[in-house]
Structure formats: C-alpha cells, structure tokens
C-alpha cells in the first residue's frame, strides 16, 4: 500500500506483458526438469483444471437438457439429447422477466464502468503526478473504501436512496457499483501513471502542451493497459454484484441476473435447465474479459503490497 504514496513506483510484476511467460516455460522444460516430475506436474495440473471447470461443465450440460431430464430421478451426467432451443425459450420463463434482467445488468455495469473511468482517471493521474496538500488523505480515503463493502452498508443506502427518490432505479446501483470499485481503478491506474518518467511530461510541457493535453496525448497511450484492466475489473464486478441489488432494486424487471436467478431456488419445480442457460450466457463473456487482463489482475487489488 505504501507504493501508492511513492510516486516513483513502476508497475510491477503483475503488469508485465504476457510474452515473457511463455518463453520462460520453454527454457525450463528444455532444461533439467526430469520427465517424471514433469508428468507429475501435468497430472496435478489436469486435476486442478477439471476441479475448477467442473461446476461450469455441469452448468453447460444441464443447460441443454430438457426439464424432464434435468429433474429425472435417474440423473444423467451428459445430456441424452442436446436441446439448444433452451437458449431461445428460456427468456420467456414466468419466474422473472429475464430479458429485462439482462438489459438491467448490462446498463448498470456499462454506466458504472463509465462513471468509474470518468472519476478515477483524472484522480489517479493527478495524484501520481502532482504533490498537493491532502494528497495522502485522499489516497487513504481510497484505501478505506476497499475495506468497506456495499453488503454491510445496504441498510444505510436503502434509506438514503428513498430520501433521494432513486430507490429501485438503475441510477442507485450505478452509483453503488461505481463507488465501491473506485479504489481498484484508482490504484491500478495510479501505478501505471507513476511508472511513466516525469521527463516525458516535462518535455511535452516545454513544447507548449497544457496539463490536459499532456494527459490525453502523452500519458493515455502509455497507461492504456492500466485503463483496460480497471475497465474490465469494474465491469465484471458490477456485472456480478448481488447484495446491494437484492435490497435496492425491488421491481423484478430492474433487478440484475444475479438477483433474478435466485428466485428459481425453492420453487415447486425449479427450471434448472433455464437457470443454467442464463448462467452460461452471463458467465462466458466476463470470463473471457477476465482472461484478457489475467496478468494484471493482482496489481490493482494489492497495488504495491505484493513485492
């Protein structure tokens, strides 16, 4: 955390480009690792792979079963027939307006991400570049929000949003998601800005560029990976948010998918095949997004703490 207070800190290990990794693997394998232990590692790796993917494979296989098959007293591991049409019919299920839930999830996540970017980008740039009274107080404030989660504040937020007249609106959840993901975004972008030598800025200023031009023309292209990481992380976190949405969004159509899907539990005859179909649709895109920022995920969460 102290790294955030020293502006000279370069982005660390976790922010390195991916190419070096593959090279290192090749070097080691051609080196002295005995074949036996290499096979052992591969076997362990395979076990890990299966364990981590298993719930999602069950989900996928379940999503193409018929209702009769997924509720059969003689359960099948693999679908006997592949019913891809589930992915079309599931949106009309009576439990909850799933299409509206999907739209809600999308709108809330996109707007929260844009808001975070608009607010965190200037803040992280300025705190990485300039010293001013209150700078440490601000950075401390950002760290503190990392320690607080919306779940514990919902009772306060609930009353607050009633008073503001935005309870049960997208705006409420956009604000909540943006506020609680702000710290990750500020941290990761701060570390990228801090990694750019100040001379680059000064050279541009000598050429007559203003602070804003220096930010947009000189810095932004260099901190691009940090911005992408912040954007993806905020988007995925908002996409999956549950606790605050559960309380702050009361109309079925306003709720995100995470809340909507819990309504299937405890039903007399839960349509599990639809639950899983929607889950697959909701999970696959964000998993791909997360994989794209794999190398930099740790950087923002723990900033300089892991050295």
């Amino acid at each position, binding site marked *: 955390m102290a790294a955030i207070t020293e502006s000279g800190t370069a982005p660390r290990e976790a922010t390195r480009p991916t190419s070096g990794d593959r090279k290192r693997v090749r070097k080691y394998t051609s080196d002295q690792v005995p074949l036996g232990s290499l096979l052992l590692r591969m076997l362990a790796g395979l076990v890990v792979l299966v364990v981590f993917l298993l719930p999602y494979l069950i989900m996928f296989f379940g999503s193409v079963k018929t209702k009769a098959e997924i509720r059969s007293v003689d*359960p099948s591991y693999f679908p006997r027939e592949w019913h891809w049409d589930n992915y079309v019919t599931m949106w009309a299920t009576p439990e909850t307006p799933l299409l509206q839930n999907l739209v809600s999830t999308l709108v809330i996540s996109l707007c929260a991400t844009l808001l975070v970017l608009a607010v965190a980008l200037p803040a992280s740039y300025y705190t990485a570049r300039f010293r001013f009274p209150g700078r440490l107080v601000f950075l401390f404030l950002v760290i503190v929000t990392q320690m607080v989660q919306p779940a514990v504040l919902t009772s306060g937020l609930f009353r607050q949003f009633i008073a503001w007249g935005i309870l049960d609106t997208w705006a409420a959840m956009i*604000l909540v998601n943006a506020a609680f993901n*702000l710290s990750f975004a500020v941290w990761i972008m701060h570390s990228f800005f801090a990694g750019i030598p100040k001379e680059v800025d000064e050279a541009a200023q000598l050429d007559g560029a203003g602070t804003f031009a220096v930010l947009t023309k000189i810095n932004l292209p260099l901190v691009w990976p940090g911005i992408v990481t912040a954007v993806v992380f905020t988007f995925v976190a908002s996409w999956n948010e549950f606790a605050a949405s559960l309380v702050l969004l009361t109309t079925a159509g306003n709720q995100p998918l995470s809340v909507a899907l819990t309504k299937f539990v405890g039903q007399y005859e839960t349509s599990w095949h639809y639950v899983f179909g929607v889950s697959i649709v909701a999970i696959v895109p964000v998993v791909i997004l997360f994989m794209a920022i794999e190398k930099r995920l740790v950087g923002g969460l723990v900033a300089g703490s892991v050295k």
Partner: protein
Amino acid sequence: MKDLLKALPWIGPAVALIAAVVLFPVGLMFWNSTRDISQSGLDDGGVGLANFATVVGFQYFWPILGRTVIWVVVVVGCTLLGSLALAALLNKAFPGRRLVRMAVIVPWAASVVMTTLVVHYGLEPYFGIINSFLVDVGLIDTPEGYGWTRHPGTAFAWAMAVAVFVSLPFTTYTILAGLQTVPGETVEAARIDGASGVRTYFSVVLPQLRGAVSVAVLINIINVFNSLPILRVMTGSIPGYDADTVMTMIFKYMQNQRQIDLASALSVIAFLVVIGIVAIYVRVVRPLEEV
C-alpha cells in the same frame, strides 16, 4: 491551499462519489441504528441503544456470532492452504500451465450466485448430480441421495466449501505474484547446500511470501465476512436461524421482517467488527509495512 484548489477539479469527483455513496450511508446507518423506524419506513423518534439491546438479546445472536467466526476462520484458513499449494504448482513450468492458470480464473470472473446455484442443484435429493455421483460411487446408500441443503449443518458446510472454491483464484494469484519475486538465487543456494525441495520451500520460499500472504488473508477476511450470496442460496430456504451468519441475519432483518432499525444496529456491529479485525490484523501482522 492554492495547490489544493488546483487539484480539486481532478480529484473532486472521486471525493464526491466516495463521500455520497460510502461515507454518508455509514453515517446514516449509525443514525438509523438509534432510531425507531416503522415497517413502512417512518421515523418514530430516537430510542438510544434499544435496537442494539434487541439485536444482542435475540436468542440466536450468540450462536450466529459464533458461526460467523467459524465461517471466516475455516474459509480463510482452507483458502490459504489450498492457494499456497496451487500457487506452488502454477509457479512450476509444465506444458499446459497457461491453460490451467486460465481455468483457475473462471470462478473469480463468474458470478458467485451462479456458481453456488449449480452446487445447490447438484445437492438436491433424487435428481441432483452430486448426490447421484455419491450414490454411484457407493458413498451414500439411499438411492435418492441425501438432503444436504435441507439440514442447516450440512448446508452450511457445503456453503463453506463453495466459499473456499470462489476465494481460491484471487488468493492463488496474489501468492503467485509473490512467488515471482522470490529471487531464484536464494532457492538455488539452498539446493546447493543440500536442502530438499520441501525444506527449501518452508525455510526459504515461504518466509519471503509473508507480504503476499498477509495481504491476501486481510482481503479474504473482509470478503468472507461480508459474503452474502453463497449462504443466501445454500441455506436461505431453511427455516429458523441455525445456518445464519451476521451478514445473512442483517438481510433477514431488512427483507423478511422489514426492520431497518434492527438491521442498521446489526450492520453497525458488523461494521465495527470488520474495522476491529482489520485494525488488529494490521497491527499484529503488519501486512502493509513491507512495501
């Protein structure tokens, strides 16, 4: 002062957002915890600490608090041990490592609700796939399986397993980042001195992971304490309070009983507990000092 004014356009929006959506609700929550608020939301005046007395006096309060401690300690402990092993494996070179690393990310990116839902389905008697598997391999005698999610104890245990599963990715990646900074020379030196792989790990590598491990544990404690969705899905439909933690109890006050004043009081307690844990942890382990 002039510098601060110059900084304001840049950091002002961030400060405003934090003040309005994080700090203000904290204050409001403290205020509400001392008020008598009707189910329809009317503020019927101050009641001092009566709400706290009601919450603490609730007959299941202490069992719930004890269960919360078990929840945090077991989940964070198992997550840490699992992650140390996983990170040690993923730090070694082998063909297909990249693929395994990607697979480990999946529960991190996927919605916790949805991951829990599939486990909940699997544990259903008669048609659940986990039950079916346990019957097929002969671990359960009854052909319909066992009603894991019908009993508070077993449902809670499975919820802990899911919580470990979804906490592993972040923790593993944090420790992996720590492992990459362990200088290769120190490991080689230990090997040359004749230390075994296990010995090298415990006396050379592990001490250098102190920073990474303590930060991961700190963030995990906060996340696991605040976790709602797993228990909500796994144990939410069980009547009574035998599988609740502080966090699920807050939501029961808020949603089932519509008692926002009691929910606020318990939230204040939870909030102070988290702050207390973090303060003690930071003081004892000093995770933030080694930077």
